[in-house]
């Protein structure tokens, strides 16, 4: 988020109240930063695509694992081991399974990062005063400046909900009332 108003809360309760109120007032472009997932927020987010990516990668990895074994031992250089079939399905299952798990896990890790826009070591939010507590015990809400209902009164709503402070970030408009120190 580059432009908008962010507010800091000292606990999940006030944060949840503010979040629900903003939603009720019709704000849609809301962002939040919390030390751990908060129910009111995460249950309203659209479903993540990560599991589907992992499923596809897992199936692909397993097929590739099987194919490599078949190609090596049953196609390119046929190995007769104790008269067993060249394409011995039971013997090829363990590696196919493991390759599937490996591919799915790699895809899972990379897609969690990729879809979250990470790694990204610098972010404008890090410039906001006090934001370093967002990973510890403070809960932050941001209303994006591009929200159709966005105006300076958002800050008042947030402060009425118990925000410790509101900050205007980016944009050309002067900062809203702030400096309510904890």
């Amino acid at each position, binding site marked *: 988020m580059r432009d908008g108003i962010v507010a800091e809360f000292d606990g999940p309760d006030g944060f949840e109240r503010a979040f629900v109120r903003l939603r009720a007032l019709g704000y849609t472009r809301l962002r939040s*930063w919390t030390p751990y997932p908060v129910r009111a927020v995460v249950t309203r987010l659209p479903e993540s695509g990560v599991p589907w990516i*992992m499923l596809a990668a897992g199936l692909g990895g397993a097929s590739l694992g099987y194919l490599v074994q078949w190609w090596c031992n049953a196609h390119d250089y046929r190995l007769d081991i104790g008269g067993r079939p060249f394409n011995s399905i039971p013997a*090829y299952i363990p*590696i196919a399974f493991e390759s599937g*798990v490996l591919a*799915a896990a790699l895809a*899972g890790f990379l897609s969690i990062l990729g879809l979250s826009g990470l790694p990204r070591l610098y*972010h404008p939010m890090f410039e906001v005063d006090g934001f370093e507590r967002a*990973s*510890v015990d403070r809960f932050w809400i941001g209303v994006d400046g591009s929200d159709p209902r966005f105006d300076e009164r958002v800050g008042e709503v947030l402060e009425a909900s118990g925000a410790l402070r509101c900050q205007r970030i980016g944009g050309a408009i002067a900062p809203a009332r702030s400096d309510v120190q904890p």
Partner: protein
Amino acid sequence: MTSAAIDSPLDVREEPTGGEAVLLSRGTDLELTDELLAPLWRPWPRLKYALAATGLGACALFAALTYTAITGIGLWGNNIPVAWAFAIINFVWWIGIGHAGTFISAILLLLEVSWRTSINRFAEGMTLFAIVQAGLFPIFHLGRPWFAYWLVPYPSEMGVWPNFKSSLPWDVVAVSTYLTVSFLFWYTGLLPDLAAARDRAPTLRQRRIYGVLALGWRGDSQHWRHYRIGYLVLGGLATPLVLSVHSIISLDFAITQLPGWHSTIFPPYFVAGAIYSGFAMVVTLMVPARAIFKLGDVVTRNHLDNIAKMLLVTGWIVTYAYLVEAFMAWYGGNRFEMYTALVDRPRATYAWVYWGVIFCNCVVVQALWSRRVRTSPGALFVIAAFIQLGMWGERFMLIITSLHRDFLPSSWRVYTPSWIDWTILGGTCSFFLFLFLLFLRFVPFIPISELKAMRRELSEAARAGRSELAELGDFAGAGESGGHHA
């Protein structure tokens, strides 16, 4: 969970002796975070001695491995017919130890067991370092470790491929997959805590290091959206993976024709044994760490109690497997099987190993029926040491006795390990502890974000006054009633 906890929603406190709480800390989230991050910043005056001691052991390991690589594995006690010996015993033992880490972090995650939360990171670290030790053995047992890449199907000039109908390439894939997935799962779980470490770091240098490691994690709702489900599915993947890895390793034995190995009981028997020894290792590491870092309020007696119950359960599965093994050998009527299971193991050269294993794995663990023993860190530590020894002995018994006397009496031979074997075994223990100390020093080893989330959940549940609250507090069936009766 008693009503005391329900009265004070933000304070999920229980008396330490009550044994039901999974989190005793009363402080704020900030205090909890700082308390759990403190080992990263605080100087450790005696750390350098511990690191020097374990590092010296690790050097002995590398020296012994180098000596082996340039001379050959004739330096080991291995002979024909006992060609597997220490290398495979240690390999199976270390891999098994790793399994409890995955069990705690993945299977208990899926079962929504709340006592997992304080100890999962710790157990995952244990898993990673145990796999590293395990991986050394098969590679050096190849004799020419520099050709280890032959196990991988790369397009070689020679135009030959590995034989995938053999269980040995299965091992390669299983162990390397296990290492990779364990690492990814561990690192994914670490991200929010690395971000907290970045934001609380006292110096700029530490802030930069943890900043890079945290990959820019901000706790954004978009991060949590993908992270929560992704972490859960990774746990779902790790669950069949951990069962498959030791099953595949057991197939190294089970698909051979040797008496004492050629048995369908092997996969579940090995998996249970692995989790048994792994939980013992969790105790071995956790009890001292808990005392040193004063973690009594996040790793409560309830955790010890639950781990002890897991030891008891897996101990009985292992005991049952021993009984079935002997019974099937007798019932199957095969002369060679009967000889191995009923004469060679209990009455011949290595009988003392066999009875030692029975004592360590089946007898000592029965002390855990007592709740007092289960919640006493000292007693648990001693029992865990017996189990480690017993599980190592079990692999010794399985591998050596089946090999040293097989079908042909003229090829029978006694096996004695050499001093290099012992150096390598001791060296891996040192190297493991060395890595683990570094992990304790530099990584937030109690999942901070998860603990805060759990505390929030518990207080929400307490406010809602939901009856399933009791389930959040305990696992292993006993719940609150079982605990009080004992």
